């Protein structure tokens, strides 16, 4: 009797794809032009989308946070320090990852899925071209690099928007708001770890969904849906895991 564990098989398949991608990067780095194209597609084309999302998020968070804080203690001198710490450690990486998963991850899944259902992926193999090296590796590098840069950009936009809200609505001095008093190196390292983990997970999960597409245009639709669902699930799981480990290792000490 054969017992199968579809969940474990899926995890093994995704880690297998990650391994193949890393191995292909070691063996032969992708052409610079392909990486630049994916850097542009992931980063430059997401700037407005990220600015709008993170700008509003920054303003809403500061507005709600200050409003609630005022009910308890009418002192907002630490509002900026708390907000910046939360943004660097938690919201900056996680919200940016969710935004990029929906905008870029779905694009990766759709592109590869179309190539899969039209036999282009098999045609690559027939032409002695490794589909992972050709399709996944440049997207992986482009996404990972831009995930880090976009997170820095998102944090900056959100902090700036929060500062404006704090200043204009609650008369918090900008110099007071821009305090790094609560932000430690451990917060930065947890934030950076999350950013890198998301930057690795999202393109691999998207590519995996694309490669598993089948059944024509409907299959492409399912692949993009699966890519975004899997990526969001992975982001939440990684967030929980890294936050927990980070707390035990550096904060709890």
């Amino acid at each position: 009797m054969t017992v199968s564990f579809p969940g474990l098989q899926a995890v093994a398949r995704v880690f297998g794809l990650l391994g193949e991608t890393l191995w292909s990067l070691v063996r032969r780095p992708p052409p610079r032009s392909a990486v630049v194209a994916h850097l542009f597609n992931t980063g430059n084309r997401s700037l407005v989308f990220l600015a709008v999302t993170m700008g509003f998020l920054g303003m809403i968070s500061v507005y709600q946070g200050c409003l609630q804080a005022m009910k308890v203690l009418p002192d907002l001198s630490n509002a900026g320090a708390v907000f910046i710490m939360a943004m660097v450690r938690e919201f900056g990486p996680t919200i940016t990852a969710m935004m990029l998963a929906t905008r870029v991850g779905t694009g990766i899944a759709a592109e590869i899925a179309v190539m899969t259902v039209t036999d282009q992926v098999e045609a690559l193999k027939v032409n002695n071209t490794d589909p992972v090296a050709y399709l996944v590796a440049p997207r992986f590098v482009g996404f990972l690099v831009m995930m880090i840069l976009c997170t820095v950009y998102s944090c900056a936009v959100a902090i700036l928007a929060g500062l404006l809200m704090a200043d204009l609505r609650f008369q918090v001095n900008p110099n007071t708001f821009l305090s790094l008093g609560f932000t430690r190196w451990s917060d930065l390292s947890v934030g950076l770890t999350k950013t890198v983990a998301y930057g690795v997970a999202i393109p691999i999960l998207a590519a995996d969904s694309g490669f598993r597409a089948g059944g024509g245009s409907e299959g492409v639709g399912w692949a993009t849906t699966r890519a975004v669902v899997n990526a969001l699930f992975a982001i939440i799981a990684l967030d929980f895991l890294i936050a927990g480990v980070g707390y035990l290792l550096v904060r709890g000490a």
Partner: protein
Amino acid sequence: MGLTKSFGDHRVLDGVDLAIRDGEITYIIGTSGTGKSVLVKHAVGLLRPDSGRVLIEGTDVSDLPERAWAPIRRRYVLVFQHSTLFDSMTLRENVALPLRKHRGLSRAEARERAMDYLRLVRMEDRADRMPAEVGPSERKRVAISRALTLDPHCAILDEPTTGLDVIASATVDDLIRRLSRELGRTVVVVSHDLRSIFGVADRIVFLYKGRVWLDGPPDVFRVSDDPVVRQFIQGDPNGPIV
């Protein structure tokens, strides 16, 4: 030999025995879903059999690892049903790809040589267009020219005339004849285009219920009184094939 292949509970190939002879144009025919494409994908290692063996020039390749297929895929090329040109490359870059990857030519050399192969299929004047900018017949011709860049021993064409008009089909048929008669290649064609089959084939293999139902030259099919073969050839909606 004795090839079987299932997808889930559906058995597509159920013990197929077939040997392709050098220099012939062999047509593999059958109704949709009988496993014609599945069968030819075994010949280039895109699918592995559940049981049975795939022999290429006497060597069992059924369990070869992926990296060992490269030299075989140089000699046995598959042109896919949907042409499968790469959307992000021009026609010339599509043809140049196997020259770079299989033959190790530089990018510039491969692009220059690609023009020779595009000339073979009379597509040299549209070399720098994208696949989306040309018609289905032109895409098929470019896909065939891309396959020829490897100077293959055997070309396997999966439904090369499906979806083409009569003139475009005749152009592809002519190209298949030239491949065999002028260039001496072995050609295997998957098709259910009867005009093409009876106009070009040296040998026809009819797949039905996952097995080779009838195998022989076109004349054998013309005079066959097998009800399954007759229904397929006459395109009759009534009969044993449902």
